[in-house]
């Protein structure tokens, strides 16, 4: 097997698993998944998470 084959064989499934598992994790934890443009940006989503944690009682 050539090196490129090994690299692709490892990277491709790893990437798919990573995307799927991080999506499922965010859904379970109620975190922004980034599908919507408003929370898709890292900076905005971090602020949202911070605000949610600070005002958790209101939401519960």
């Amino acid at each position: 097997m050539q090196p490129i084959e090994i690299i692709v064989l490892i990277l491709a499934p790893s990437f798919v698993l990573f995307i799927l598992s991080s999506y499922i994790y965010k859904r379970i934890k109620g975190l922004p998944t980034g599908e919507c443009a408003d929370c898709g940006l890292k900076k905005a989503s971090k602020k949202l998470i911070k605000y949610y944690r600070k005002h958790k009682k209101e939401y519960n």
Partner: protein
Amino acid sequence: MLNFALAGNPNSGKTTLFNALTGSTAHVGNWPGVTVDKKEGVYKKLDENVNIIDLPGIYSLSPYTPEEVISRNYILDENPDCIINIVDATNLERNLYLTTQLLEIDVPVVVALNMIDVVEKNNESIDAKTLEMKLGVPVVSISALKENNVDELMKKGYEAAKSKRKAHTILEDTNLFHLVNDCRIAFEAIKVNNPLFHAVKLVELDELETKDHPELVHIVEEFKSTFKDEVFGSDFEAIVADSRYKFISKEFANVKKTTVADEEKVNSVDSYSKSDKIDKVLTNKWAGIPIFLVILFLIFHLTFSENIFWLGKLINSDSFANSEFFAGTIWHEGGINSPGVILQSLLIGATDFLSSVVASWLSSSASWVSGLIVDGILAGIFAVLSFLPQILLLFLFFSILEDSGYMARIAFIMDRIFRRFGLSGRAFMPMIMGFGCSIPAMINTRTLADDKERTATIRVIPFFSCGAKLPILTAIAGGIVTYFGVGNADVITYSMYLLGVTIAVVSVLLMRNTSMRGKVPPFIMELPQYRMPGFKPLMLHLWDKLKHFIKKAFTIILASTIVIWFLQSFTANLRYIEQADPNEIADTEFEDLATENETYKNALLSEEDLEAFDDSGELQVSFSDVMTYYDEIEDEIEQGAFKENVLTPVLLASYDSYVEEINDKDYKDQNDSILAHFGTALTPFFTPMGFGSQLSESGWIFPVSAATGLIAKENVIATFQVLSQASSKVEIEEANTDEEKINAYITLYNIGLDEDGVNAAQATISSTGVNIAGLIAFIAFNMLTIPCFAAVATAKAELPDKKIGKTLVFWLLTSYVVSSMVYLIGTYVWTIAIFASLLAAAITFIVIYNKNHPVYE
């Protein structure tokens, strides 16, 4: 850290100021209801950082709408250190109503007179000092758009926040003040914060107030029994409102002054403001909607047209520089490309170059590696990215319409029409947002107070095709034009957008006359002044959109293309499908002939210019070089001889090898893949829509592409491209004579060489046997069906309980019925009579039923 809240009427410039202060890229719109939830940011230019909260736009602190409740609760419960009340200086009296209410709260207030530049442009001025004296709080004139004086505003706010402020009310000179004072004392006794505000609200018998403090209501009721106003009787809420407006009119009548010497010119009946003059045309009763449709068409024309302003007939090869760059990118035989198409062509050129570099780099590696990377990943991602210029351009145009103030007018015009269908113009705004993305559009329906109106609006928002559906529209429309030679891409795209709007209107009509009958809520909206959109906010919007799109492409879509490639490249028993490659077969046959057949070798050597062999006698050209050489021969006789001696032997041998390979009982192609099995199982359901069982063996590509759209709508075209690239292409045409075999193989060979995938897509369309009606039905299905998972999740969150199930059924049913109608009418025109009869029967039934079962509210 200090907390400052931005409060003010819709369209007063709160979010513009928020962006200016925090450097954030919060969305700015020019019609009410854009800011629905709170936004937070930090201002860092003072001695300590200040947290800025952008509250929703409100006209008062009454409890009638969700935005008012959010703002009121925030101010009363969160105790911000200062409220910055943004007042639209061009509309002082209306904006000051909220100010008079804010002054009744024990919180420092600073008034920001925004849009002062517009006031000055209208040859007017506002006496900020007098305003400050009368209100009793600092007043700062600013322009949030031009960022004038905003730092000064924050300094005043900071100074105000450092000292306490005692609330006061403008009702001190009214008959109700005694009652207000009694209530205030009662609230102070039970240690309620902001007693004056609560006292005034109690006097108005405010819903929230009476619910929270029922024990104090008797104070108001007792007073009510002995009080009567000449005009309003004992309606205290009306009396309080009237008092506020009287106060504002009396005290602030002279605050705004004109600076133009010739007052007659200003006072003349004909001196409308610029906005009014423009409105006379754009909101005209008869011309308003046609003008809107023309503007919309212009937007699509500038984005998608390949024959801009129909100048095609003026073009000939001598008109423009005869270079490869101009030809194809900027113009072609059919006409001049629109800006959207030019940008797209440039991007496609770049991605094609990248693909060819990667393909040549991987040419010596295993076929599955180059298959995954080139035909899977790159084909899928670049298919989606190629539409980025047009998506951004469309988004730019809509943002310009929004920021200029025109969109607010559209809502106003549409109200007249929408009302007949059971919606107010207010519902039009979230729908228009749906052209960008369904998710913020659905969230924006929180501005609709009526639950039925809100549910109906959320259900039809996906019918306004979002940016993600644009690649489907454009690619299929382009395919129809290129393959069938029918119509223009921009006209087809525009028509499909209009179809979505029409289906939305019909759906709402149906819902509001069947399951959601009820009165249409009133619609009151302030029309903002027209203004030139700011360059910086527009560019910030585009940048945000670009970042999000690219992030989505390299995460969700990339993962999807890898999965799709795997499913269509392996059989059920995980055997890799090594498809017959016509280019590879031709190259092999050419090499064999060139090295083993002396006659053939001599034929090659006789073509000195071809330089087929090097000095040591090694073959140094490929079959594609030979094909290129053949195309460059100018002399017809020479060309004919070359074809007979050099091309024909290779093509005939290749044809036989290819047919032998694909007829081998062990040969597998894409139709044996895992994905094909899933797709084939789905095809019967799509038969009424024209892309189901009636198609050939490879017709499953359409249902599978549609299904992958549930993850992200961009996936539809990415999937289509991946499947087209890797398919065993056109089934090689049956050939009996040598001439037929040669022509069939040349066609197959050229498809294999096709770098930009256009021929592959066309070959796929051709091989499946789908007709124009089927393709349009495919577009309609994808436009109207269940949107992406993210939009479904948002709909579930925004809809009242247990309505998501019915909504999903609604989407499926609508897309199924409409697509079937499109296909059946397009293929069998006479079916229009059947559908018309069914529609007439349904309408008659609904009308009679509604007449016999009226709804009382």
